[in-house]
């Protein structure tokens, strides 16, 4: 695929990438940052994409890995902050939760209570519509691991969102 085609397809993917980012971060500003970083990474590592494989899965993997890195960095920052404040308990996580409510309502809250690994599985399969195999490849785990994370995430969401409909 030539650069033009690659860039066209990447551009066409942007709305979906933004949706995935919103689900992962549950915050509009964080999601935009994540998209920006993802597109930068995708353009920089364009040579690593193998023609004949799904471009969308490749870019979702970049986004997912980028978010994991970011989440780890946040955890470290939050811990440092808490240590410095002698356990005052104010970190980025609490702040973010307040914003979630505004962005995605009950769904954002419910997604926010899931562990990261369940949230990404839920997002990839139930929202983004990837098959189990693709979703497992994006996350980089065996398919059985994916389905078990998905199952737990699904149960939790059913409990929380079940009565809403």
């Amino acid at each position: 695929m030539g650069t033009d085609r690659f860039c066209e397809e990447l551009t066409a993917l942007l709305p979906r990438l933004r949706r995935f980012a919103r689900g992962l971060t549950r915050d509009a500003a964080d999601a935009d940052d994540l998209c920006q970083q993802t597109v930068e990474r995708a353009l920089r590592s364009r040579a690593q994409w193998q023609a004949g494989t799904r471009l969308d899965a490749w870019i979702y993997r970049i986004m997912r890995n980028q978010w994991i890195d970011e989440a780890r960095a946040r955890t470290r920052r939050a811990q440092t902050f808490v240590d410095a404040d002698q356990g005052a308990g104010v970190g980025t996580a609490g702040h973010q939760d307040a914003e979630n409510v505004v962005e995605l309502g009950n769904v954002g809250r419910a997604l926010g209570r899931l562990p990261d690994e369940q949230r990404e599985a839920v997002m990839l399969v139930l929202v983004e519509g990837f098959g189990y195999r693709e979703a497992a490849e994006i996350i980089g785990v065996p398919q059985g691991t994916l389905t078990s994370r998905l199952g737990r995430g699904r149960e939790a969401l059913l409990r929380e969102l079940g009565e809403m409909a």
Partner: protein
Amino acid sequence: MSVTPEELAAYVDGELTGVAADRIAQAIAADPQLAARVEAEQRMRATLKRALDPVLAEPVPEDLTLMIAAFAAAEAEDDMTDAPVIATAKSSPAPVVDLAAARARHERQHPALPARRWTKRWGIGAAIAASLVLGLAVGPQLLSRGPVRDQGGTLVASGTLARGLEIRLAADGPGGQSLKILASFQKDDGDFCRIFEAEKTSGIACKQDGAWRLERTVATGTRQETDYRQAGSAQAELLNAAQAMAKGDPLDAERERAARANGWTK
């Protein structure tokens, strides 16, 4: 017939086909509890989608599309000869033709770029985005090769800078070149001017009496990812200055090319 929650989920997720899918479908038809469970799953999915799908309809931030467009334009130019800054238009017309072709190709594929509004016409977003993607522009360091000389008290461009100002088009996009033209415009007196960005210095140069006089220069600033706002502010300063100097809008691609063909004379 027993159906595990995993099987039921796989059925709802569309992972089962053929006989396996038929078996679950029959079980659901025969068991109201299973059917209720499937319905709950589908409602939950619908709830997720209702919350998240509106993101699909949101306008995509321009930063993103510009970043990708700038990358595509830069690659397209890399495919062309990289001779234009080295050769002059007169001694070697070929690069000019190639650049025009690249520009036409780019416009065909990205009709939205360049946009017609002033602020968009400057391509600042694209330039910043390209800096993000490409990192520091490579190429000869203009200042060390003496791009500027003093001509009767006025700074005029010489060497590589002068040739780049003469030949390069804003519509070329930033490319991997050390010199980028951000926009071209005409002053009140009709002189043609160009906003340029080179590795170390950016500025506005106007063609007068056959020479590119530097009307204004600023340090280009650090074009590294973390500092892109800094680079942007240098450009914004030039934009404001240019807007004050200019008569009307910046040249569109066609007028810019015509002006180049005419040697940037009034």
